[in-house]
């Protein structure tokens, strides 16, 4: 879509994030929400960021277009959208990216729309902020989009208020709002968490369809591995502001390498006997531990796990990296490998589990 920013390099990756750190100043000290993470999203692919609540997933994605409040927040690092460094843009230039090149949908559709305006008004607003479109045409496009995202009788529903929409319909309307300027990247922050399981499946299927239709990339945040299996091309596992493991979705499910990823897998309802969650809790973000962030909760942790920095990410397969001491030279990786999980055909099981609720 039209943009007054000329320096896009169409050959560069859609989104490159390097050494992204997001901190918040609080009365108790500096809170480290995201600690120097890197990731890339290429054109047309779906990348899932997985991790339990509080691991920094949302803050990481909201740092991309700097939706987080600054201050108290502070974002450092490099974020390139098709070669254009978003960190160097002025607030005004950044606004022309938001909703235009990079769009967002959020976790709680109940609260994500202003209750005082009609759904149609809010979609038209999203369009007219970026494009000088006559009101009539904007309305027609909004109705088309509402229809496209599966709102029945869209031209009548255009004038309805958010409280007249169901939760699933609201999330559909939010998707329509996000797509109004045909973005290259859709950042979806737990878009199905607040919805019924049946509605979840419908929304995921809609996102899959729209992704193909618009050729956009999706950066998907979730804590639900079932959803990951359904939608992801690549997976990034985050814990306490750090990347633990990353890789192709099949590799992550077939060979979960990091003890944290394995622990998440075991939490899936149909995996093994231990569904009591992961013992322990997230480290204090005001004072993260030395060494591997997961070490205090890791059953395999040895002394080397608790000194220095988070272990460097080691490539254990093509496009599969893990940040764990045991995969480094001089350690025995078989200590942390979980043959039981690897033998399971995890991805098929969980996808049928979600798929079963479809329709």
């Amino acid at each position, binding site marked *: 879509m039209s943009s007054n920013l000329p320096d896009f390099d169409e050959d560069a990756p859609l989104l490159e994030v390097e050494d992204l750190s997001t901190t918040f100043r609080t009365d108790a000290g500096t809170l480290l929400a995201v600690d120097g993470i890197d990731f890339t999203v290429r054109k047309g692919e779906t990348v899932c960021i997985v991790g339990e609540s509080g691991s920094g997933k949302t803050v990481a994605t909201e740092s991309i*277009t700097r*939706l987080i409040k600054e201050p108290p927040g502070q974002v450092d690092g490099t974020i390139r959208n098709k070669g254009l460094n978003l960190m160097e843009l002025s607030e005004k230039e950044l*606004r*022309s*990216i*938001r*909703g*235009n090149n990079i*769009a*967002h949908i*959020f976790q*709680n559709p109940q*609260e*994500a*729309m*202003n*209750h*005082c*305006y*009609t759904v149609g008004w809010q979609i038209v*607003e*999203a369009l007219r*902020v*970026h494009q000088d479109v006559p009101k009539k045409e904007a309305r027609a496009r909004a109705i088309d989009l509402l229809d496209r995202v599966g709102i029945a009788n869209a031209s009548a529903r255009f004038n309805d*208020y958010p*409280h007249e929409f169901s939760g699933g319909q609201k999330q559909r309307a*939010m998707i329509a*709002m996000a797509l109004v300027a045909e973005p290259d990247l859709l950042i979806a922050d737990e878009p199905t968490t607040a919805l019924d399981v049946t509605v979840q499946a419908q929304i995921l299927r809609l996102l899959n369809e729209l992704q193909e239709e618009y050729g956009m990339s999706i950066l998907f945040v979730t804590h639900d591995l079932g959803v990951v299996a359904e939608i992801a091309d690549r997976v990034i596992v985050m814990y306490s502001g750090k990347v633990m493991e990353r890789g192709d979705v099949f590799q992550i499910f077939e060979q979960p390498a990091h003890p944290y990823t394995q622990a998440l897998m075991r939490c899936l309802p149909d995996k093994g006997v231990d569904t009591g969650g992961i013992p322990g809790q997230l480290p204090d973000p005001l004072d993260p531990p030395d060494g591997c962030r997961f070490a205090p909760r890791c059953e395999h942790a040895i002394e080397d796990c608790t000194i220095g920095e988070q272990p460097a990410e080691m490539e254990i397969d093509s496009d599969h990296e893990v940040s764990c001491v045991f995969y480094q030279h001089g350690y025995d990786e078989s200590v942390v490998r979980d043959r039981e999980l690897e033998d399971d055909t995890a991805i098929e099981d969980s996808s049928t589990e979600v798929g079963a609720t479809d329709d």
Partner: protein
Amino acid sequence: MGLGKYITARVAWAGIVSLVIVTIAFILMHFAPNPAIQQAATDAALQGNDPQEAIERAEELRGLDRPIHVQYLDFLQNVYTLNWGWSEYRSQPVPQALLEGLYYSAQYSVPWTILTLLIGPLVGVYSAINMYSWKDHLATGFAFFGFAIPNFFFGIILLLVFAIWLGWVPVIYNPDVAVFSLENIRQLILPVFVLVTGSIGGIMRVSRNESAEFLNADFMKTAKAKGVSPMRAYAYHVMRPTMVPLSTTVVGQLLAIFLGSSVLVEVVFGIPGLGRLTFNALINQDTNLVLGSLLVFTFIGVVGNLIEDLVFTILDPRISYDDR
């Protein structure tokens, strides 16, 4: 249609409320001593006539010897046909006296109301955006000052400083200047300022606290993610929902000050408006005029609350009147 039916019902209720107030006024008046009759008795006694006979004659003259329900119906008819009697103290019909008072009251009430409605919410939202900064503290301090200081006292101080010491504005109000003239602005600037400081304090605080909630709402993040500028987001996404709870406060505040403080402010600044008219009517025991101004204030109160309830539905679509 829900709204049309609601408005009809609400207007009917307003009529019933006014009837109740008029009835209470009638009952109170019935038991209160009538100065005209007492005067007749006194005159008769002074001239050596029978005071009791004079009282009866005076009552007969005024129709007060008739049964109470006849008097009541007569009274009601007069009230609703604007036949509000003769003001002894002003020597003119009551509606005419009230209209003259209203003419002067409106000259400061209209700018005061408009300024309050403009400045109060704006400063409140500004305060919320800059919460806990020196700008917020300054606005908050100003709000509390205006809220706390009695209007009449503040008016006297301002008159002393700006009219007597500095001589920038006239000390004595001149009712004969043209409405839209520089002179009129000069003589009304202090009363308007006093009333605005008194009324925006509460409105500022309410809009600050209400908008603080909406500033952190999820839909503000949505607006930001859409690429909406902060100014637009404040104007559309914060102001609008803030107006809903605020409209309650606005009507309550303005009515309270209109009925209460304006009397004192008019006395201090010597404005011959509705407030001072009521005050003088009370002092002079001019029953008809007191009753007339009571009816005017009743009307303003009832209509103000009616408007407030209707504004609710328009501001917040979630409030539905379909089932009432």
